[in-house]
């Protein structure tokens, strides 16, 4: 076979630096073949190797008594949730593919993360996502937004997984480079954990799932480059095409095979870097070698070269190492599901990854070297110049509002704050009969019941106590503006808000998964953002008892105009101990007392919570000022207090204050309960903030001071909440009562200067229709 000659140009085209190439020569002791060059380029891309971020990622807290599989060990982390049950979860990005081909890019992002979960032996039971786009006024942004949501819906709905929560933000910095971070969670019994290790010398290696094509060639390497104007055209071939139907079958067959006693020695999905990554990683994990024959790999296109087969990212494929003597099990189960399978190789004791094509060796590389000895770079970091301007900004330069009533309406219409029903109504969020709290509250809650679990081996008796039900809460959060304005403080706030969402739902954090979406790490100012952000994330995850169990790094997020706002997103998963503790955000009954936990306004903040706020951005067109700071100790106290109150049975609703501040929070408490199509449930509220000391109305109403939660309770329980808050040294004041319901509901807020009042139905309409009216009116 005539393969291209290795030249410095070819090496550079593969994104391999001259130093890295020297290292390859040293590892191999010779010039690499073309196929080998391709293998190194994908395995040493940031996407697979974390070469630019490894030293940072090591600073994350990753341990707890509950963690059974930790960060970096396997395809996803696993956490013990008691009663012999465990959960596996992870978040991963598909930013670049979605920028080029939004529908398939997002769809395959969902497919990839689902595979990471069932590879662990878990049955996937729910999904979430975190999405970011440019401003909706742009037709191109609307095209990307529509495509991404459609792709997620297509994949998740067909696969049969409820997409139960998420977040969507809009900001000009993401124009041309949307962020698509997909999360999946699965459940399993403790003894069902599967490993991605090629164990057992002489064991056969199976390829299962659809045939390999040219789609997604070198997607991992593509994900590790800047997006350029030409990317869309050149790279469309690097985007994979997903088939959720196929994935559903592959999952069912894999779980069935994993239940077959002693059949599976190791299993790994073929995700980024496809066959390459799965073979060398499984061998490296087990300390073995692996030898495969490419002519045995099912192929969809004629005349595929070894290079193409090894680097293809065709979807829904799995690599399974079967214990010798159990080959017939694979055949039986995959034939039952009418799925392709092929025995393509064997586990060896050589420690080498040997790839043959019709007998001819096309790659022969020490597996551990390529999987684990990727280069590590300590990148240069420099404080960005713009931060000086940020710190110089003073809120006193902006006049206080004289139009507070309109301000609230404008904020409710701001797409980032407005209802995301246009999005989540396209996702099946109820399949599997476990969605207890659906999209539209602070965090989602999913019920784990007997049939949520992977099947047992034949004849094996149940190891989970009969009748066990568990309630798992989850939320995902990010705030690119805060992190842009203060990478360290902003990142702490992101984690705090996510944990606060869980606390409001009645859940105690178990662990977290993060997705670091940043710009080009070679740029010292951008690397500074990354470094400082990780410092903040690590500190906060530790405080909230949410160790990181895995995640994903996506760098090079920039369009021709510059980098995106640095955007770490974090998903925290928690346990609600009892069904009765599950709490939602909307007010429940007339006459209930409304209490604000936390300081109404952080007087220590020179910007009074308005730096980087939605109010300043939306109403003043200013994205500046140091963002509100989050004192993690105070924050933890507020969360502990609300959890204690929920456990006491005194809290009827709990909603955290975030974008848009207290006024938006109160409005949402009045109208976010929705029982069916065109059937919102309104309550009114009479709120009195006239006693709160704050010179600025905008800061009091729309400031984003951290560590605040609005709760409601029956009058009989209000004092208990106030007392409990005091116990935790958390400021707490009664700010009003729930008053009125139905069409005549009014939200009124009395300030020292004036009393504001809104009819609830129209502001609800503004909030509910803001995104849909833009998307459905726009021409397709």
């Amino acid at each position: 076979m005539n393969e291209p000659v290795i030249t410095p140009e070819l090496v550079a085209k593969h994104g391999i630096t001259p130093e890295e190439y020297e290292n390859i020569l040293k590892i191999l002791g010779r010039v690499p073949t073309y196929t080998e060059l391709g293998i190194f380029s994908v395995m040493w891309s940031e996407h697979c190797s974390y070469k630019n971020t490894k030293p940072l990622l090591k600073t994350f807290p990753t341990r707890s008594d509950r963690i059974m599989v930790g960060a970096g060990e396997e395809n996803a982390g696993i956490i013990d949730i008691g009663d012999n049950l465990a959960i596996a979860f992870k978040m991963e990005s598909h930013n670049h593919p979605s920028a080029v081909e939004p529908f398939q890019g997002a769809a395959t992002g969902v497919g990839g993360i689902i595979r990471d979960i069932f590879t662990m032996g878990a049955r996937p039971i729910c999904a979430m996502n975190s999405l970011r786009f440019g401003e909706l006024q742009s037709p191109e942004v609307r095209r990307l937004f529509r495509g991404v949501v459609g792709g997620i819906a297509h994949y998740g709905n067909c696969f049969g997984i409820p997409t139960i929560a998420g977040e969507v933000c809009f900001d000009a910095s993401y124009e041309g480079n949307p962020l698509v971070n997909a999360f999946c969670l699965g459940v399993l019994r403790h003894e069902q954990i599967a490993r991605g290790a090629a164990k057992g010398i002489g064991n056969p290696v199976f390829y299962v799932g659809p045939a390999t094509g040219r789609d997604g060639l070198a997607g991992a390497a593509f994900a590790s480059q800047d997006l350029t104007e030409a990317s869309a055209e050149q790279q469309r071939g690097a985007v994979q095409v997903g088939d959720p139907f196929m994935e559903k079958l592959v999952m069912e067959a894999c779980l069935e095979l994993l239940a077959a006693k002693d059949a599976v020695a190791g299993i790994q999905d073929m995700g980024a870097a496809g066959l390459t990554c799965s073979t060398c990683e499984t061998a490296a994990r087990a300390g073995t070698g692996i030898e495969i024959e490419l002519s045995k790999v099912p192929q969809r296109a004629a005349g595929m070269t070894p290079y193409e087969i090894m680097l293809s990212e065709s979807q829904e494929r799995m690599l399974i190492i079967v214990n010798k003597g159990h080959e017939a099990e694979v055949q039986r189960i995959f034939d039952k599901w009418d799925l392709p399978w092929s025995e393509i190789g064997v586990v060896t004791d050589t420690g080498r990854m040997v790839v043959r094509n019709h007998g001819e060796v096309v790659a022969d590389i020490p597996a551990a070297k390529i999987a684990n000895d990727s280069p590590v770079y300590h990148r240069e970091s420099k404080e960005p110049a713009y931060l000086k301007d940020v710190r110089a900004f003073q809120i006193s330069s902006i006049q206080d509002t004289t139009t507070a009533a309109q301000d609230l309406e404008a904020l409710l219409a701001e797409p980032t704050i407005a209802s995301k029903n246009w999005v989540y109504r396209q996702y099946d969020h109820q399949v599997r009969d476990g969605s207890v709290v659906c999209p539209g509250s602070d965090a989602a809650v999913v019920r784990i019941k007997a049939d949520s679990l992977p099947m047992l081996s034949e004849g094996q008796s149940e190891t989970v106590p009969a009748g066990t039900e568990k309630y798992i809460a989850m939320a995902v959060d990010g705030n690119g503006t805060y992190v842009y304005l203060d990478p360290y403080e902003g990142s702490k706030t992101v984690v705090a808000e996510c944990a606060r969402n869980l606390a409001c739902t009645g859940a105690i954090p178990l662990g977290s998964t993060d997705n670091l979406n940043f710009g080009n790490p070679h740029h010292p100012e951008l690397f500074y953002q990354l470094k400082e952000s990780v410092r903040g994330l690590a500190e906060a995850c530790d405080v909230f008892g949410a160790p990181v169990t895995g995640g994903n790094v996506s760098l090079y997020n920039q369009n021709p105009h510059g980098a995106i706002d640095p955007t770490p997103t974090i998903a925290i998963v928690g346990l609600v101990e009892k069904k009765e503790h599950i709490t939602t955000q909307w007010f429940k009954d007339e006459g209930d007392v409304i209490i604000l936990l936390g300081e109404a306004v952080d007087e220590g903040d020179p910007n009074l919570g308005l730096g980087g706020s939605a109010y300043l951005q939306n109403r003043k067109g200013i994205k500046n000022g140091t963002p509100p700071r989050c004192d993690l100790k105070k924050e933890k106290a507020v969360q502990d207090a609300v959890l204690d109150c929920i456990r006491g049975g005194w809290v009827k609703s709990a909603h955290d204050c975030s974008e848009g501040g207290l006024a938006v929070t109160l409005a949402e408490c009045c109208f976010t309960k929705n029982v069916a199509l065109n059937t919102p449930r309104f309550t009114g509220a009479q709120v009195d903030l006239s006693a709160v000391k704050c010179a600025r109305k905008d800061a009091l109403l729309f400031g984003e001071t951290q560590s605040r939660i609005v709760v409601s309770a029956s009058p009989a329980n209000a004092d208990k909440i106030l007392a409990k808050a005091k116990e935790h040294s958390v400021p707490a004041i009664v700010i009003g009562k729930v008053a009125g319901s139905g069409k005549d509901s009014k939200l009124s807020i009395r300030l020292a200067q004036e009393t504001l009042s809104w009819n609830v139905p129209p502001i609800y309409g503004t909030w509910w229709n803001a995104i849909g009216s833009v998307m459905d009116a726009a021409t397709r």
Partner: protein
Amino acid sequence: MNFAVLQFPGSNCDQDCVHVLKNVLGHSARLLWHKEKSVGNADAVIVPGGFSYGDYLRTGAIARYSNVMAAVTEFANQGGLVLGICNGFQILCEAGLLPGALIRNRSIKFRCEFVWLQTGPANTPFTCKAPEGTVLRIPIAHGEGCYFADPETLKKLEANGQILWRYCDEQGQVEAEANPNGSLLNIAGICNEKKNVAGLMPHPERASEDILSSSDGRTLFESMIQWHCKK
């Protein structure tokens, strides 16, 4: 009572149906693989929701040719109770066991949300526990749920009392605004002339427990159980 819940490649509400029938209602329910040629000892068959065969070609178009559907057709022709939910409804229409067809939602988008349903005549195995006009709150989750049939068929359906569920508002008014997908006559579900085969787009199995915020869907399964036990 013995329920058989069909399992096609791509079914994804099969387990949910078994869960409700078995764990919530306490009856026997088992999965029936699409390659089977008999419904065995089943007293009733549920054709569940999902994306059978990936919805390739057309929803339900491939499933109707499966082994098990031949058996279900025979079972139905002998008077056996068959309920199709969502994709199951689409399959029953494709198989000719129910008249009409389900086409793309008028919004061209998948829709998942609770809707209100007005129950039709109570003289069927699927509605006998709910007096005519009962309003139910049950979720939908579909991209192709817009019921379509020629005017003559629609007339017949109405005249024979075969329209069992219509989209309505909370008060039970059948009106355009309450229709999530553009279905003709706001049809959410129908039965055949003999009234032993029914299909609907909403998912009663997702509204059969209070923890999922509605138990209204139980009335469908409980009707089938009551009908069978009286027989």
